[in-house]
């Protein structure tokens, strides 16, 4: 059995548990994902399955990709992602992984590409406090302040937090609880927030910790 599945973030809402407490949840459309390729320790140096997700127009793909899917006897998919597995036994190319690999109460790690925020300043990117708005500090409202000492060391240390590109990175959130898993609707309801915009691609794997 595969330990992971690809999904599409639908959005967030809340549900109630038995005690009536509201729990924030993310709704994910997960799978069904056909196994397109199996990587083995012997041949590739590691064990993994390559999963496909979201149908794609057959006329719009080039021949090498077409051949790759044909080999697995799977219709073309938009996304291909590998998920590591401990053993490839019992897995076959062409078989389908669905949301049923998880059940309520399991914990999962969810990876996605966070929302791209472009070039942002230090206040948004690193949470700097900025300057004061009054008492003569008006010109330093969102500035970073000092970036280090002067003559010694005569340079700015590597890794100094400054403004720059923010977001648009792969972010993994660990140990989220599965509240509901429904194979028929290809649905996973996961407690908490995950990275990325609605309709963003997610990789949902069994929790490593």
């Amino acid at each position, binding site marked *: 059995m595969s330990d992971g599945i690809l999904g599409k973030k*639908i*959005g967030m*809402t*809340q*549900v*109630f548990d038995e*005690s*009536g407490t*509201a729990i924030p*949840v993310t*709704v994910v*459309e997960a799978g069904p994902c056909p196994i397109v390729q199996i990587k083995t320790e012997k041949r590739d140096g590691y064990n993994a399955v390559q999963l496909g997700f979201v149908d794609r127009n057959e006329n719009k793909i080039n021949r090498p990709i077409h051949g790759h899917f044909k080999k697995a006897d799977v219709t073309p998919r938009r996304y291909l992602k590998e998920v590591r597995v401990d053993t490839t036994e019992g897995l076959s190319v062409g078989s389908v992984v669905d949301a049923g690999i998880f059940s309520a109460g399991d914990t999962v790690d969810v990876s996605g590409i966070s929302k791209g925020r472009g070039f942002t300043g230090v206040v948004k990117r690193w949470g700097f406090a900025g300057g004061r708005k009054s008492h003569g500090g008006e010109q330093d409202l969102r500035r970073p302040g000092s970036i280090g000492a002067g003559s010694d060391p005569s340079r700015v240390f590597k890794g100094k937090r400054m403004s720059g590109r923010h977001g648009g990175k792969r972010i993994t959130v660990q140990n989220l609880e599965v509240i*509901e898993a429904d194979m028929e*609707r290809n*649905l996973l*309801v996961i407690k908490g927030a995950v990275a990325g915009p609605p309709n963003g691609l997610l990789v949902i794997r069994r929790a490593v910790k």
Partner: protein
Amino acid sequence: MNLIQSVESKYIKDDIPNFGPGDTVRVNTRIREGKKERTQAYEGTVIRRTKGGLSSTFTVRRVAYGEGTERTFPLHSPNIESIEVVRFGAVRRAKLYYLRNRTGKSVRIREKKQSSDA
């Protein structure tokens, strides 16, 4: 029905009475004390309803012992046993925040004449 609604549908209550801002309601909530469970009522004027599917809430304001109190309830919470509408009020706002600045006579809300929908 989209996927989010299909997740929420299991929890959505269908026995919620028709009420809105300005109405006086009595909210019976379940309270668990140790192992015992009892019902507590909170009665007051609805000053706000927010819509959001399963996340919808409403806020009830009452003046208790001279102190204004407000409580916001999740509309579909399983801890709400029932909602009784005590009185329909005639108001011209959707959010009655102005009641917070008023005391005494000016807090009163006219009773709504019964229309065909009630």
